[in-house]
């Protein structure tokens, strides 16, 4: 069959439209996430990135069109670090095994769960901090705890919302390498990001959206001045550095923004 030629679609959106309170957030989007994909969804704030992600996960219903998920597909979701309540009383271990709630009801951690959690913690280099409160971790560790929680219930598709927003350069590299390793091990990944150069340009496939899909393909084909202007509504330049596109904001845009700031203050 053609299964070898085109990998199986895990999630397929057909002419998907999503709306909040009557205003359209995602408009007529058709795209597929296939087994082995590593996709970055990019676009400006309010472009519907997170909405599209939530529609893929099935946590918001489509206004029209539909989302088809492979029967029995296990998905795991890693929320934005900013959305986590860091004062909540849980340790790293308790956080990681939280997704076990689908396994049963017995409150105590079973031996199987503990063993599996230890493997995941070991894989992500978190064994030493397993008993710490989640607030007492470094930025990279905090991000990894939530990836560990997602991996704990053995997903086929990992979905991350802005995995590198608000983190420093070192943490960004750490997260990117970790995701690349997981992808090499066979995990399919979809993420959203603001970070064109630090993250999107490194991925095999990038989807630019601004409510509608503007472009979908390899970064070299997608991160072009024409596509970026359509996506962001601002002029951008693209250089090729080491075979990879590097996106620069155009100077005029910068100056204009500074001057408008000056007149307000």
């Amino acid at each position, binding site marked *: 069959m053609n299964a070898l030629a085109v990998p199986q679609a895990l999630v397929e959106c057909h002419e998907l439209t999503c709306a909040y*309170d009557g205003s359209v957030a995602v408009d007529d989007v058709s795209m597929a996430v296939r087994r082995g994909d590593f996709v970055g969804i990019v676009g400006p704030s309010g472009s519907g990135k997170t909405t599209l992600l939530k529609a893929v996960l099935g*946590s918001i219903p489509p206004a029209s069109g539909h989302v088809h998920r492979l029967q029995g597909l296990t998905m795991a979701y890693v929320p934005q670090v900013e959305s986590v*309540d860091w004062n909540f009383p849980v340790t790293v271990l308790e956080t990681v095994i*939280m*997704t076990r709630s*689908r396994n049963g*009801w017995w*409150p105590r951690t079973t031996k199987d769960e503990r063993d599996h959690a230890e493997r995941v913690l070991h894989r992500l280099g978190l064994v030493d901090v397993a008993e710490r409160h989640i607030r007492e971790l470094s930025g990279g560790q905090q991000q990894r705890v939530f990836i560990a929680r997602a991996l704990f219930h053995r997903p086929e598709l990992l979905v991350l919302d802005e995995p590198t927003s608000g983190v420093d350069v070192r943490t960004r590299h750490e997260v990117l390498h970790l995701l690349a390793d997981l992808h090499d091990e066979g995990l399919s990944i979809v993420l959203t990001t603001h970070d064109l150069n630090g993250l999107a340009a490194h991925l095999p496939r990038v989807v630019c959206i601004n409510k509608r899909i503007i472009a979908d393909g390899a970064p070299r084909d997608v991160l072009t001045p024409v596509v970026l202007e359509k996506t962001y509504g601002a002029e951008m330049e693209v250089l090729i550095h080491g075979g990879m596109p590097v996106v620069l904001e155009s100077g005029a845009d910068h100056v204009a923004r500074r001057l408008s700031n000056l007149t307000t203050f």
Partner: protein
Amino acid sequence: MIATLFEPFGYSFFNNGLAVATLAGALCGLLGVFVVLRGMSYIGHGLSHAVFGGAAASAVVGINYFIGAGIWAVVSGVLIGRIARRRIIGADAAIGVVTTASFAIGLALLNRYGQAKKSIEAVLFGSVLGVQPADIWAVSIVAVLVGLLVIAFYRRLLFATFDPDVAQVTGVKVAWVEALVMMMLSLTILVTMRVIGTLLISALLVIPAATSRMLTNSFARMLWISPVLGAVSGFVGMNASYHLDTSASATVILVAAIGFVVVYAATGLRGRVRVAHVHHI
């Protein structure tokens, strides 16, 4: 001296009140964990005021308190949900409108038709000494029920309380879990209100849980420390109120509050010592 300490135990009304106050403390302490961690102390406050309206109405109409106030609480909950859905208003304002209106209806009804002052005071401040066997039964049954539900739903309650979005995606029916919390909360307020009173019940839903949060970084441990603190507050407060001749519910809350202040000071001090150690390195 010792004889004076044991003196109140000679009265059965006191023993009844003591049993209910201790149980109510444990029950409110347990549910308070969810109230505090979800940042919904205003819901506890609001619901207790709403139930007051139901209590007054059922007294006037002459139906059983638990049925009348129970129905009233459910209706208020649904109304709050409906009004809050209009985003422009928001949940906190919706709660404010519904519950204060409900409270006002209760007051007006009691003024117009009730035995007026005495029953109003009883509902506002509770009457631990007027506790009837039915109250002991009601609080005991709800305490056992809530305890069992928290154990049975522990995993889902933890996940949905910490991270509702991800819990939903992982297959936890978050709307159901939230309804369960609201139901346990309404039941708890219903059976403990006549004992502690409308005005002070929200304190018992917040203080023991807040104190236990300072004592531990573990959700599981909070779930037993907080009920223990609540029960101790109920027990000690009741005894103190007998000897000091103060309002029972007020004394229970004051004991809980003193516990909070002591732990706040002690953990603050410990934190400072830890910082000092770090500086020495």
